């Protein structure tokens, strides 16, 4: 027994020392930034070199995050591999990064999708600026997921807007300018509330402790209650709700997804949507437990509306990318539902669904880009009969579609199942209504599939016969397909790493709520006077 404990201790300390051997997380953020600056120095005609550098950098990031997963201590619910460096001491801002079960797989997802974008959804024109923007975007996304400092999070969160804006404007489709502007303004307005909220929270913390800091590990101890809590929480959530998006703050997303180039759509749907839901889980729940519990019915309702509404409206879309946008709205509704249901199962489900949605949405957008490169259209009515000419594409599309409608054995089921099971236990009727989403998702996805792949004659242009997936295209899709199946069949390793962090978070929420209740009881006679 003693021997066992000792060996565990040794193992853990060994893991810690290995974790500290190299600043993995800092490297994850900085490698793409360095690569981007390196590319700036390369002449724009050296396309292959530029592309090579970008790919190598993104693959290196993927390698580092694989190492991070490997070094991650499974049973530990706290932040790991933390590095702290005071940045602006007077302002209380520090370079504090770390990873826990909630952010671990979002980091992994991000570092997987970027190489795939660089490999499979590359822009042919302006390779240089494209590579630079993509790499900066990667750094921004990774920084957001890793920041333990609220202001740093905000900076990264905002920093992602610039590259995505330029990706859209430079490589997007016809309506790109209007869509990009709408996206920029809408998310920017949302972010403003987040900034105000962050500053206000830091001031409140300062007035209570005398210490000005944006470190969330300190800010969680801020005593926020009543009106302030609700206002701050709403300010934070507005930013996240726009980003995710959550109904009814979604109207930028169909236009943006539709007009963005494939690369940007993949990142927007696969990664950036999770910035919003991650923000909710990380900041709303952790910093404003009382307000979260108070407002949970509101957000549960918005989540359920999103699930149903997104599905219903998706069924009426004529544009494939818009359809995916509304289907994403529906899936984000599930994540919101899980987050605000505040049970172990539902929050774990929400976190795992962020990963899973990222995988199948990225695969869907890649497939849509592959269809577009053959047919030059996203219009569902103008695509048909592709299955006959491209059976492999049809097969992979089918698999991804089934994952997205939550068929068990594939990854989409795991998150949905946990979310609904957890929500059912805590807020039964919301879960009952949300189950309708299971039916609706089958309706719109199967309808779209039938339109695109089934039906009689494929409309082939005699000059340009329809080809099935090329080897390169298959290679791009393979990692996603493998993960979609693997995480459906055996999600345990992922959940085992998510669980402790989620449990800690939920315990924190309920503890704060209990203390609040206690204080409220103690204070009430005073207030009565």
């Amino acid at each position, binding site marked *: 027994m003693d021997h066992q404990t000792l060996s565990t201790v040794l193992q853990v300390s060994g893991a810690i020392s290995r974790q500290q051997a190299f600043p993995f997380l800092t490297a994850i953020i900085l490698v793409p930034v360095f690569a981007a600056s390196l590319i700036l120095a390369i002449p724009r005609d050296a396309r292959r070199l530029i592309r090579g550098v970008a790919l190598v950098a993104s693959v290196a990031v993927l390698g580092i995050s694989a190492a991070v997963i490997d070094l991650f201590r499974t049973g530990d619910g706290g932040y790991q591999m933390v590095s702290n460096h005071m940045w602006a001491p007077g302002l209380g801002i520090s370079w504090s990064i770390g990873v826990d079960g909630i952010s671990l797989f979002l980091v992994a997802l991000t570092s997987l999708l970027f190489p795939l974008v660089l490999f499979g959804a590359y822009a042919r024109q302006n390779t240089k600026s494209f590579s630079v923007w993509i790499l900066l975007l990667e750094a921004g996304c990774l920084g957001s997921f890793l920041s333990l400092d609220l202001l740093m999070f905000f900076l990264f969160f905002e920093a992602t807007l610039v590259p995505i804006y330029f990706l859209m404007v430079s490589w997007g489709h016809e309506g790109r300018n209007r869509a990009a502007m709408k996206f*920029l*303004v809408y998310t*920017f*307005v949302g972010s*403003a*509330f987040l900034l*105000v909220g962050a*500053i*206000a929270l830091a*001031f*409140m913390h*300062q*007035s209570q402790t005398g210490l000005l800091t944006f470190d969330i590990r300190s800010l969680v101890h801020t005593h926020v209650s009543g009106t*302030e809590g609700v206002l701050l929480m709403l*300010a934070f959530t507005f930013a996240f709700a726009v980003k995710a998006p959550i109904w*009814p703050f979604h*109207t*930028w997303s169909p236009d943006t997804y539709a007009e963005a180039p494939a690369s940007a759509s993949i990142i927007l749907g696969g990664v950036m949507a999770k910035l919003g839901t991650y923000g909710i889980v990380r900041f709303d729940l952790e910093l404003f437990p009382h307000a979260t519990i108070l407002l949970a019915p509101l957000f549960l309702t918005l989540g359920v509306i999103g699930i149903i*509404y997104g599905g*219903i*409206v998706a069924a*009426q*879309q004529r544009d494939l990318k818009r359809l995916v946008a509304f289907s994403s709205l529906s899936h984000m509704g599930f994540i919101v539902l899980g987050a605000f249901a505040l*049970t172990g*199962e539902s929050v*774990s*489900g929400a976190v795992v669904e962020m990963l899973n949605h990222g995988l199948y949405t990225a695969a869907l957008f890649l497939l849509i880009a592959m269809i577009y490169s053959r047919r030059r259209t996203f219009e569902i009515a103008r695509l048909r*009969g592709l*299955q*006959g000419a491209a*059976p492999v594409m049809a097969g992979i599309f*089918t698999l991804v579609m*089934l994952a997205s409608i939550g*068929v*068990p*054995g594939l990854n989409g089921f*795991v998150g949905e*199942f*946990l979310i*609904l*099971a957890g929500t*059912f*236990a805590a807020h*039964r009727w919301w*879960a009952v209504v949300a*189950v309708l989403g*299971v*039916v609706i998702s*089958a*309706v719109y996805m*199967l*309808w779209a599939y*039938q339109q695109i792949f*089934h039906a*009689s004659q494929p409309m082939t242009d005699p000059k340009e016969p329809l080809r099935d997936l090329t080897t390169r295209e298959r290679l791009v899709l393979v990692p996603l397909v493998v993960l979609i199946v693997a995480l459906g069949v*055996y*999600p*345990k390793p992922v*959940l*085992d790493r998510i669980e402790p962090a989620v449990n800690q978070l939920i315990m924190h929420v309920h503890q704060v709520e209990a203390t609040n209740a206690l204080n409220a009881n103690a204070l009430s006679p005073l207030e009565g006077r």
Partner: protein
Amino acid sequence: MIHAAFLIPLFPLVGFLILAPFGRRIGNPIAGWIATLMVLASFVVTVLVFAGVAGEPVASRLHVENWFTWLNSGQLSIGVGIQVDPLSLTMAMFITGISTLIHCYSVGYMKLDEQFSKFFVYLNLFVFSMLMLVLGENLVITFLGWEGVGVCSYFLIAFWFTRPSAASAGKKAMIYNRVGDGGFLLALFLLIDKLHSLTFTTIFSHLSQLSPTDLTAVSLLLFVGAVGKSAQLPLFPWLADAMEGPTPVSALIHAATMVTAGVYLMCRVNPILHLVPNAGHLIAWIGVATAFIAATIGCAQTDIKKVLAYSTVSQLGYMFLAVGCGAYDAAIFLMLTHAFYKALLFLASGSVIHAMDDEQDIKNMGALRRAMPLTSATFFIGWLSIAGIPPFSGFWAKGDVLSNAWVVSPALWAVGAVTAILTAYYMGRQYLLVFLGEPRWKKAGAGSLHPHDASWQMSMPLVVLAVLASFGGLINLPFGPHLTFLESWLAPVVGSGLLHNTDSTLQLWMFGVADAVFAIGGATIALSLWRNVVNRPALEPQFLFMAWFLDASIDRFIARPSSALALFSARVVDRQVIDGAVNGVAGLFKVSAGRLRRLQTGYVRTYALVIISGLVIMVAYFMIRSGL
């Protein structure tokens, strides 16, 4: 041998994994034979395991195998594993057995199809899913199989995807099934909430922790799932459309196996149903109503496969009648014999369709008895069996169901009896129109048609199934406990039937005679009405031909309004109300900003202004509140 049970689902999975990537290269017919071999291997293993379990004492015939943990979350831990017991083995044995026959048949039937190997990819995946469904040790595995067979059914109905009707039928089947799945999922969530487990053995040993309301809710929610999967009222229209799939698929999935999954589920959770008799009544009534309605519809169909489809719905209704009456062994008995004779009828009609160059209208057939003697003879046996003519298997199984219904309520029995007459009648009508009378196909324009019996791959399964359909009743003869093999075998899982508390030899014979009279009566009516007549409009009213307008009503009152609602949401709510509000707010700021500062700005500067002023106000508020 019991520990070899993991091989049962493994073989078809391996077949799928081999054929999915390499099937096309392996080619026709080797790919088909590999698939057949895999299922045959699975059948052999099942038989061996069956023998092993049968050798154990009755009390220790339950073996649960855990393979690995699927996930842990909160208090919930879900494993992947199988449960070997008399019920699951019975299911596995008839599934693998019939599947082997139908795989073999398909090698012949799909011979000329371009997607030959893909057909077997789906078929093997289907068998794997179906086996997981019946072998699963917890409800999540059952659900995995449940969805897996649904997906395979979708693939296979839409197999000839270039036909819009096939593509739509596949989609329709999947969506109808999903409606039921919603119920299934809610039942799982309720059980998770109350018991934190979905393992059958755990659930059944903790039923006392569930309130009566919970028990009723779980039973009915699972029944909703069963209604979708097993095509009961009101969710049966998809099964008729599912006939768009290749005929072996109709035989395997939409007659013998998948559609019986709902019945299996109900039998599996019998300890729950046992505690809520009211739910049982509802199930029995829905079952018998479905049986009756589908039988009336069957009387007016003209498509050879649609007659069989509605007869399947009707027979499934009988099975739910048995379930609702608590006679689970009778339900399984009927399921088995139905699998024999219905697979037989489908395969025989597949031979007919093959021989008739894809003609499916029975009004254009006739007199095929001489051209296709083997097909005709086997179809004839199928008819006698489903009609319940003694001593064919259907007689014993249907008799078992009806006598149990009588014990619960004579009214249930009466509806079931009328349905029995109808069954003998409409199946007789079909046999007569297809195999006897004038050869109408000669003048129907298909001049070069030479119908003939099919190759050995297709004939052999017909013969085997005809033998099973004839003598299948032997597994459960009601003459004393030493002959009710099936009932005694299943008793440790489902308990024994109701009748045995009260039965007497006299009662037994009275039921037997009554059943025989119904069957012979129905068959005689068919003979006298349809022997040489092709059209009798009075007996084929539009109301029945259109399946009581159920499909049309669902389309009119559910599908179209939903579609209109969706269109309204997309065009008006999303574009005008929500996005309009967003744009309105933006415009408002723009206008007010313009008026205030007379700025000739684009969006960005306006917004910057708005944001900064808002920011200042909010920061000020919080600074004041926090006393800075």
